[in-house]
């Protein structure tokens, strides 16, 4: 039996209720969404909190995938499984289904959420790379209902650290919808359900056979899962080609900062950053064309 240290628990009845509880209880409180990152840490007693505020009852308010004009909006409490099974999302951004198929296992995907994934900010976490590739922005709501919009670059402050401050909650992810988009995700894992050795997500936007924009997000190759602006700069305005993808792969390999661990050597991970960048760009272009 692995059990967390004692804590008190309350179920929030609305987003604003959750915020007011956090305001009142301060930094010894934590939101719990799917709990698949938080609870393992608490059970191993790597983390302990005096209060847990459960937001799972807010699924009506925070669990949705809405395609709007020029933008797709996804609620923070949308579960992995809903992301995997959404036809709307897959049609616009197949990168989500690619990634979700290889995130954890069905048990975790039934509960784990988009918001929890991003807020956990684990350097090996997959959806941050997806959102980075898609140029997502994050809607954070704070005391008094004030909302602010931050880019993925701003959202990620460091490993396990995000722009979400005390008393704040991530409520929504917004994905710009632009024509000519193709996207793809690839992950190398030691075993199904394992965290990535390295993974890469790519999105390209084609305009008349030329890349108008392209973004790559990597996971598990360093403290931050950020996009690599140099790749975007190298691809923009070019016609897709193998040599272009190779160039992008080389940039990815040299821009990342992986560490040797049980999952693999730093050299191997660097190689994968290259290989997977090329593979995902190739697939993203194919998809953009079809």
């Amino acid at each position, binding site marked *: 039996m*692995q059990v967390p240290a004692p804590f008190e628990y309350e179920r929030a009845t609305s987003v604003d209720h959750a915020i007011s509880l956090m305001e009142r209880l301060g930094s010894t409180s934590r939101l719990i969404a799917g709990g698949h990152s938080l609870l393992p840490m608490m059970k191993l007693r790597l983390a302990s909190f005096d209060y847990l505020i459960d937001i799972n009852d807010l699924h009506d308010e925070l669990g949705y995938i809405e395609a709007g004009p020029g933008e797709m909006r996804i609620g923070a409490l949308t579960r992995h499984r809903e992301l995997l099974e959404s036809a709307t999302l897959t049609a616009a951004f197949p990168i989500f289904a690619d990634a979700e198929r290889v995130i954890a296992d069905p048990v975790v995907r039934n509960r784990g959420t988009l918001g929890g994934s991003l807020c956990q900010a684990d350097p090996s976490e997959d959806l941050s790379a997806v959102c980075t590739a898609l140029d997502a922005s994050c809607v954070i709501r704070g005391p008094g209902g004030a909302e602010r919009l931050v880019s993925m670059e701003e959202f990620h402050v460091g490993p396990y650290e995000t722009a979400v401050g005390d008393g704040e909650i991530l409520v929504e992810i917004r994905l710009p919808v632009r024509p000519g988009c193709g996207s793809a995700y690839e992950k190398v894992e030691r075993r*199904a359900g394992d965290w990535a050795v390295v993974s890469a997500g790519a999105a390209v936007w084609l305009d008349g056979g030329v890349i108008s924009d392209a973004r790559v997000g990597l996971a598990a190759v360093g403290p931050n899962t950020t996009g690599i602006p140099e790749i975007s700069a190298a691809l923009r305005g070019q016609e897709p080609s193998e040599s272009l993808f190779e160039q992008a792969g080389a940039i990815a390999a040299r821009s990342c900062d992986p560490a040797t661990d*049980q999952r*693999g050597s730093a050299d*191997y991970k660097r190689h994968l950053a290259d290989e997977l960048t090329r593979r995902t760009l190739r697939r993203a272009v194919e998809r953009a064309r079809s």
Partner: protein
Amino acid sequence: MTTVHERVDTFHDNDQKPVGYGRMLRKEDPRFVRGRGRFVDDIRLPGMLHLAILRSPVAHARILSIDTSAAEASPGVKAVVTGAMLAEQGLAWMPTLSNDVQAVLATDKVRFQGQEVAFVVAEDGYAARDALELIDVEYDVLDPVVDARRALEPGAPVIRDDLEGKTDNHCFDWETGDEAATAAVFARADVVVSQDLVYPRVHPAPMETCGAVADFDAVDGKLRLWSTTQAPHAHRTLYALVAGIPEHKIQVISPDIGGGFGNKVPIYPGYVCAIVASIVTGKPVKWMEDRSENLISTGFARDYIMRGEIAATRDGRILAIRTNVLADHGAFNGTAAPVKYPAGFFGVFTGSYDIEAAYCKMTAVFTNKAPGGVAYACSFRITEAVYLVERIVDCLADELGMDPAELRLKNFIRPEQFPYTTKTGWVYDSGDYEPTMRLAMEMAGYADLRREQQEKRARGELMGIGIAFFTEAVGAGPRKNMDILGLGMADGCELRVHPTGKAVVRLSVQSQGQGHETTFAQIVAEEIGIPPDDIDVVHGDTDNTPFGLGTYGSRSTPVSGAAAALVARKVRDKARIIASGMLEVSVADLEWDKGSFRVKGDPGKSVTIQDVAMRAHGAGDLPEGVEGGLEAQICYNPSNLTYPHGAYICVVDIDPGTAQVKVRRFIAVDDCGTRINPMIIEGQVHGGLADGVGMALMEMIAFDEDGNCLGASLMDYLLPTALEVPDWETGFTVTPSPHHPIGAKGVGESATVGSPPAIVNAIVDALEPFGVRHADMPLTPSRVWDAMRGNARPPI
């Protein structure tokens, strides 16, 4: 000796309930699939308290002080016990299965991360866990010994300073074979190949962790202990010796067990703590370890650093095999093996080949790691032995430019050579290797696979075909040379037929998923003709079963299976006498027709075994000299081990860009002699093959340089899932054991033994374009990529 050679059994309809051998659904499954199993953690006794163990956070340290006052004051806490307190009762240390000692709770030093330091007993598990955090232990951290290769260096920290006069980390030396004769053969051989190999430390990781409920009754002095044990009788005797409780006052109950794989053979400190706690508090006490505790502190397997050498003629006749092994035994020598076999049955490293000479020299050392060296389906280190020989045979094939199947076929021990005494003294009982090998090759379509591989190589694709052929030595064992702590490895068995013709068979062995309740009912059914469904199999309770040494090392069918068959024959012999009285003919005039006795030449006159049972218990006369009742008991002492064999072929594809390995096909042809329930055999094989995929591709208990265990959760210690394994293709041949009453051999570990070398051989074969001759497990993508770039490195 007959060898039947067939791919699939004729399928018996499950609904027809064969009286005897054949496919039949497992009798135990309804309770498991309906959630009605009863495991140790399901035991709840009135007033039961809960125990949690404080473990060392560091690998090697002197304990300066332990302050338990805050924990004692914590709500719900009933007792806090340290090593010093146990020492006062003489209980701080206990014997291991290998005649070493192990700390129950550390007194002087901690010697591995996760070692037991103190325990808390509280009203519930939460209170016990919370109180652990309040125990204040002051450690003086010492340099750890992590790398076994450096354990014997002068100046290495001495781990076992508890042992009188100990000044180094030497555990034992062992050798087998003829050193001089082997050297002479090597000196004249055309070809000599040598290869360093590491079989890394892995963990059995059963689904159910270890635990116990101890209930000591102070009034009648009886201890009842429910525990996760594969060897309830052996444990009972050891508790009697350690704790000084008379043996007749100890009842060990091993209820449903959620997997063992050798992990539940040893006695762990936690069991002893639970017993002490129950004695101290006068209440039943439950201890159930969590997943991390199981992974970091209980018996591991393997951890052999080996050099293999093989000598051969240029045309591919294997002449000799030599090996040097450095064995890492952790902080205490807790190996579970017969006492005279400190390296288990590693001596069978000569494999399935008829060679001229062999020699092994082994040195075992202590390190600051969890003790063990248990099974994990290793049939006492045969896993390591088979890996060694099957890997170096492939290295030889590579050197000679010969097909690995052809090289094996050329060197097999031939059927007429059995019983065959190996150069290390093992007497293989029976075997007919070539048909088994040929069947596997036929099922695989070996020639086509090689063609496909050629085509793929031309296109730059990486495909590999790996072969392993193993001979196992299972069923320990003859009591003349096999015992564990002085307990001979013979097994008792009792069979009682009730008046209505139903029966109960009582076994000393304990099932952890092997399907004993079905297999043993079938063995008895085959002999006395009572349907398996009418035979209750009782096991796992020392008060209700005869003595025997338990289930591990694939010994249940070879030893207790023989006992069950013989006890049934004994009952049948008595039944025959009673039947002769009932039919008023002489015994010699009766013939047995599974389930009934008939009068020869007068088939109309017969009695069933059920009729006999009623007569045995009923009114009316019995033949002179025959007592009432229909029952018997026996203790079976095997005359030899049994030697199952098998041919495994694995096909892998490797992604050249990411170095990920996909096991595309796996063909397993097993020969375990007489097949009792083919479905259960296949289940054992399937599970073992999945184990093999895990060990070959992902499993390893790793440590950092400070001795911290890096495999403390199932997120870190990876076990394979259904997605990593292919559809298994199984086949079989049947070469019965000549000395076993029903010709059966063990099969529980065959696949775990045989599959890792097949998979590694396949991967190395796939990497041939990169000039790779060897790469150590676990072959994770990163390690395969290293090998592709000429950087294959040992994992430790």
